[in-house]
């Protein structure tokens, strides 16, 4: 019998705990050519800004070993178009939708949360704290516990009480637990981690940064060990706060690794770029992994790697 893969996100029941990560599934339509979006645990939208936004110039992507650098720069149609076009389409297809929001000031974030609260069908809000803070020389909010907390407090204060608010954290900090702590204190219902690592590539031909935006966010399997570590640390500090784990999930085994480290849900990002049916494949492979270890419910493995007694060292067995 296949394991029970269900998860809960606030008031919403998710058929399974494999989500598509923000910015890696288009508006959902692109994905729907290859998989049934109703069968994805939830679709996390590209981070939505209040107004339409062009994003950064090309080149925006560079391939690195087992990774991808991106500086898309939050290109998007803006909240109006999202609510008029993309959200209804996803809902009509039976998908559950987590809306990722992006602002450059605390007020902007609060305004976005207010807009979403007037809307039906928003399963949760994910707050992209890696956005540049216009009032702090463009430093991402996520780098400072206090600023991150202020954004979450504002969003939590503006969002309808029954919409859970997840804070999406950046790994580019000395102490991710401190940022997580500030977000939890500010009322975050859950945490989403990790966003990309700040990286850069130089094109040896032009001898200039490979991305027009110079810096890029590093994602993909290359960063998985950092994601596992961050999820582990945050889970150890806040065992009761649900975590959406992302960062380099390519296979069901990778998903299992993040669950064992303490994630309650998994978001698949870059692998969707590499394999458009990644979400359904990862789910299937995760089911197989769970069957192999004889688990009935995916929820049972969450955080299991924290157990006190080491199960012995594999290579001694």
């Amino acid at each position: 019998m296949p394991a029970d893969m269900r998860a809960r996100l606030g008031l919403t029941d998710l058929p399974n705990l494999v989500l598509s990560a923000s910015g890696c599934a288009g508006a959902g339509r692109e994905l729907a050519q290859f998989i049934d979006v109703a069968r994805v645990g939830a679709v996390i939208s590209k981070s939505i800004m209040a107004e339409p936004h062009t994003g950064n110039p090309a080149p925006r992507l560079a391939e690195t070993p087992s990774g991808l650098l991106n500086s898309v720069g939050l290109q998007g149609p803006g909240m109006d178009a999202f609510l008029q076009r993309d959200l209804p389409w996803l809902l009509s297809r039976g998908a559950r939708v987590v809306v990722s929001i992006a602002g450059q000031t605390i007020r902007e974030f609060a305004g976005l949360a207010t807009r979403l609260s007037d809307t039906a069908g928003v399963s949760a809000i994910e707050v992209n704290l890696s956005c540049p803070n216009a009032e702090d020389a463009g430093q991402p909010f996520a780098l400072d516990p206090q600023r991150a907390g202020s954004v979450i407090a504002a969003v939590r204060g503006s969002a309808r009480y029954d919409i859970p608010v997840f804070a999406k954290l950046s790994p580019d900090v000395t102490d991710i637990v401190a940022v997580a702590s500030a977000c939890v204190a500010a009322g975050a219902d859950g945490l989403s981690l990790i966003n990309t690592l700040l990286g850069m590539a130089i094109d040896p031909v032009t001898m200039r940064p490979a991305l027009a935006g110079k810096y890029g966010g590093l994602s993909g399997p290359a960063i998985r060990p950092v994601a596992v570590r961050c999820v582990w640390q945050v889970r150890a500090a806040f065992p009761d706060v649900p975590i959406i784990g992302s960062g380099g999930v390519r296979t069901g085994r990778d998903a299992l690794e993040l669950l064992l480290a303490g994630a309650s849900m998994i978001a698949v990002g870059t692998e969707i770029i590499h394999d458009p049916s990644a979400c359904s494949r990862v789910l299937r492979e995760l089911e197989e992994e769970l069957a192999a270890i004889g688990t009935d419910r995916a929820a049972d493995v969450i955080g299991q790697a924290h157990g006190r007694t080491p199960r012995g060292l594999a290579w001694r067995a």
Partner: protein
Amino acid sequence: MPVQIRGTVLTLRRVDAYHALTLVAPAIATKFRPGQFITIAVGGPETSMLGRRAFAVHDVRPDHGGTVEIVFEARGPGTRWLASLRARDTLDTVGPLGRPFPIPRDPSSCLLIGVGYGSAPLFGLAARLRERGSSTDYLLGGDSAERVFGALTARRNGRSAAVATTDGSFGARGAVTGLMEQIIREARTDVIYACAPVPVLREVAAIAGRYDIPVQASVDVPMACGTGVCMGCVLPVTGTDGITRIVRSCVDGPVFRADLVRWDDVGTIPFDALGAPGWSARGEWGGGQPPHDRGVIRGVVPPGQQSYAG
């Protein structure tokens, strides 16, 4: 609708500077229309290369239920890996992707311009054009003779076929654009189809513009997903409503009306693009500087004015 399949390598052979790979891929072959492309995941199950590689479909055939042929240059690690494959290997393949070349309703005099591997998609297009009663003239180019793809076929099937190479080792010396005007005049060209690097397309568009000839240009912009999810392959393109948008060449292209692509602004965000920092829905300028001073956002954007994270 594109599909994702495991295609089996039927043959892989050298063609001058290129490799021609034939894949058994019925579900793609039957849906394909000229100008569309496929993407392939490279490097095997533990690959370190996450971007899919895009290739124009050169030919489709009915054998084995349907095969697809691509022609590629082994230039980087992904294409070198492809060149090392052997018959019976299988490949994660997605296609057909993108907007095909539009075919004129009425018989027309069509000029097909291809540079390097850019010639690959033109022959299937030509066949379709001839079926509809159009005539086809070819203008092919490349750095040198062994980089001009398909000249023989062009000679055989086209009404005319001209060649230009950078080093003069085959046909005229120089760029294809040097021969364009003469052909246009002689062939009384109605429509141009072009598949070439961006700078060549820009030049083709400029020349054709002077003769008021519509150009359908297939652009070769770095891609990662090919399906529209990553927003990596963008170009500034003006819509028929006059508004410039930053569009994805994988889903809105790769074939564009050349007069709508803002060739000079490729690799930039023009200030008047929908959603650009200076853009305003109400047509007012957001900042105090006059538009021409704001210029375009080119190359290195000051950090802090952008988000690196997605």
